[in-house]
């Protein structure tokens, strides 16, 4: 073996060693960073999974009966273009104010292909019936009973009134907390299309 050959051999060995080292470095860093990325993804997953339905979530299904007990409404069976899903209570002052506004514009909404469902939460039908009679305005849109607060729980409701803008595919486009004015109502209806 000549001197040059020995030198070449050593060079080769050095290069092989370096490659091996690079490989291990890469492996170690990849493993740690990958584990970190999975963990961080999980935190994002949970942050969005706090039980409150927000824009971007799918609207949970429910089956509710109207106040007079005559009709069953199921969220996933809805076939219109868009939907405004409203939650309210008799104890909530802005809810009381927005109801006549919704009634006034309900026909327009329907012409647009948008339905308005109003769910009352955790109350007795008796109280709600009296409340609507006292309102002095006949309501044409469906008033749905969530006496056991089950749908309220599924949507994670904190404040009333709240209106979910839901598109034809059943995705929540926006969650609006607060009283509906005519302008707001129309704006939300447009968004649901």
């Amino acid at each position, binding site marked *: 073996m000549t001197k040059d050959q020995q030198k070449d051999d050593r060079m080769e060995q050095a290069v092989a060693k370096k490659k091996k080292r690079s490989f291990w470095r890469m492996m170690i*860093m990849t493993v740690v960073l990958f584990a*970190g990325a999975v963990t961080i993804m999980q935190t994002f997953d949970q942050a969005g999974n706090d039980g409150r339905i927000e824009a971007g979530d799918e609207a949970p299904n429910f089956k509710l009966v109207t106040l007079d007990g005559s009709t069953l409404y199921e969220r996933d069976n809805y076939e219109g273009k868009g939907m405004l899903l409203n939650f309210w209570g*008799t104890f909530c002052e802005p809810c009381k104010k927005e109801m006549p506004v919704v009634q006034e514009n309900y026909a327009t909404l329907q012409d647009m292909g948008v339905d308005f469902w109003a769910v009352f939460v955790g109350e007795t039908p*008796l109280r709600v019936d009296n409340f609507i009679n006292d309102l002095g305005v006949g309501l044409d849109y469906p008033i749905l009973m969530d006496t056991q607060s089950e749908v309220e729980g599924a949507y994670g409701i904190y404040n009333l009134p709240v209106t979910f803008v839901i598109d034809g595919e059943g995705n929540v486009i926006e969650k609006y907390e607060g009283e509906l004015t005519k302008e707001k109502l129309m704006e939300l209806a447009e968004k649901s299309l």
Partner: protein
Amino acid sequence: MLDMKYEGADLRSKRRPKSIIDRVWNFFASVKVGLWLIALIIVGSAIGTIFPQEMYIPQQLPPEQYYMEEYGTPGSIYYALGFHNLYTSWWYIGLIVMLTLSLVVVSIDRGVPLYKALKKQPVRRTERFMKGQRLFGQGDGTEAQIDEISVALKKKRYTVKRDGDALLAEKHRFGRWGPYVNHLGLVIFFLGAMLRVFPAFHTDTLEWVREGDTVSLEATDGEYYLRNDQFILEMYDPENNEEDAKFAAAIEKAGAVPKNYETELTLFKKTGTNEDGSPQLEQVDVGSTKVNHPFKFDKFEVYQEQYSSRPEFLSMSFMLADKETGDEYGPFKVDLENPEKSYELDGVTVTLKDLYPDFEVKDGQPNTKSPRALNPAFFFNVESPEGETESNLIGIRLNVADEENRYDVQFAGTEMASTSGLRVKSDSTYPILIVGATIFMIGIAMGMYWPHRRVWIRRHEEGVLVAGFTNKNPSSLRREVSPLLEQTGLPMWEDQARFTEKSENESTDERGES
């Protein structure tokens, strides 16, 4: 003097970087980067204590609203940056991950060359190397003297190696691994902390359960259900309880003092689903949870954490009295959740016209403040057998009726239910955290209490060279070995660092002999 930190070993990260892999490696191998990461984690943790964490704020409001209303703009910034859930915020975990990587890389980068260098260290070192040690001396001496001190050093529990007329005595080399063991412990600890993000390892939810109600436990992913059989709030009672009597004076001063908060529970397991979507439940266990005495099942613990100070009404019963004849009718019971509309009482008909679960008068009108049955009021119509109708508004400390009414509606009893706030927890990461923390402490102890000591002696030209190294507390190495040098008549060493300032231009590249 020589820099002996890593035995003058060739640190991979100190070489000129070539590929991207090397550059990233070198970034994380930097102690400076590691210290910055630690500093950022500390500052982040400190800021996280300025406002309460999300788990400690009231639950009536959504958190973003709570932080905004309670603390203003700083509060909403705090919320937006995720400080309200510090330990699971993406950037905090990101910092922990980077620190973990830094610890792994730095340990491999420094630990491996150090290990190799110490394993292969020669007994005979060069004059330059020995002169570069902190403890160094030279003078006359013979090989016989070196043999003699070899025996003496062995008695002091040194491991002595000989190479002709050269000697290397070494003790507590494993103390040098302290920092690496410590890093390993930290990495395990952080791994455990990261696993807490996954529900399979750690869950923590608060469930509000009213007496008599059964709820699905979110923490168990709906597998288990709990029923609140009874909530118990006991007060210290010095008058009727002998045990408590000895605290009478203190209780008098403090007023009512709670003695026990307890919820009696029944645990169910879901076995299937009924056609209407309701769960089929099978009773698994009965027990109770008190403060500090959780109810345990599977890997979960149920803690008594809160209770609602105002119990809700489930039902109210009434009697009807005929003022003219003195006849009494009833009692009849009104279920507050699902009330009947009319009640037949021997010819007298009571009709429930309205029901206000949380009664108030607003703008002169009866109203309800909330849907919770905290202060119920009832609007009744009473129809006599003759067909005359009277009306009554009756509630707690409230009875609005016409003076001339024939019938008087009176309370006859109530059924109430307390609501208990139970925290359901599971944490399988404790063993990992404990193992990590233990290894961490072992590493610290190794590095702190077992200094690595080495003594080199060799003949050089006509005399003898003596050098000593320790990574901690050189004066105790001197105290240990100097008397031996004196006894055997070998040249005494001097502490070279004692009187000379470390020169500024001492290059870190100086690595002793290669």
